[in-house]
């Protein structure tokens, strides 16, 4: 894995990936689609660290079922909302991490606004 430790602390400038279900993409009022804040409400929100995935040669997160998109949000954006970004590598997924903290409505909305659709 090219010297990247999956258990290493998540840096603020790291990109975190989260799958977005097709039903969580909604009209944004200008003819485009946006991610609903509903996608960012889990108090222990699973994400994938792009840095680790790329080091593992895994590329983008696999789509599953009706997951229609992949949202990218920076760890710094999460930390700015009082969240803790904790590495949580799994045997089957070394890039797994958790964004831990209560997701108030303003926080969930801020994370949704910060998210970029990358796939």
């Amino acid at each position: 894995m090219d010297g990247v430790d999956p258990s290493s602390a998540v840096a603020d400038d790291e990109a975190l990936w989260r799958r977005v279900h097709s039903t969580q993409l909604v009209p944004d009022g200008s003819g485009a689609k946006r991610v609903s804040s509903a996608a960012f409400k889990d108090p222990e929100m699973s994400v994938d660290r792009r840095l680790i995935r790329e080091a593992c040669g895994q590329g983008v997160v696999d789509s599953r079922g009706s997951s229609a998109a992949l949202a990218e949000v920076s760890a710094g954006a999460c930390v700015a909302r009082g969240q803790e970004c904790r590495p949580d590598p799994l045997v089957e997924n070394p890039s797994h991490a958790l964004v831990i903290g209560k997701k108030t409505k303003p926080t969930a909305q801020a994370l949704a606004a910060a998210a970029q659709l990358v796939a």
Partner: protein
Amino acid sequence: MSLIEGATSPRVLTDDFQPVASELRVSHAVFGDGWTRLHPVTVEVGERLQAAPWCKDFLSLVRALSSLAPNWNGYGERPIHPASLKRAVALLDAMDASQLPAPSIVPVADGSVQIEWHLRTRSVEVEVPPSGDATGFAYDPGNADDGVEWRVAGQPNDRSGLDRLVQELAGDERK
């Protein structure tokens, strides 16, 4: 209007979710929250909601959410609770939403649903859990920290908060 061809009552068949009696939770280990797919569930669609030009599309979304299987996004999500869907539909009917812009309805990982409007200068969201109060959240896009939250309704006949919801949506037009 009904999505059941030939039906005359204002009901829409959404899916086949049915609560399992506590003593019969044989599928608990599979579904995790005591719900399984056994019998149809109907959602009543009131006349006011039926009059909305977007009603058919909205009910298609309701049907889609009702069919989401456990773990629907790969993060251990619960299936959408039928009570959340029923309450969301009842709430829209109670607020007489037929003159309002088309809402979206999206699933939440805990089995709740969220009704959303994203307008030019105002976004309004209503989270509808299976029980307890629905809560509204209105904000200007780009500045959710200045948003306002309020209790929308706990019972179908409870109009507290519904008028506020309509006012928040009308606020977009005033700007």
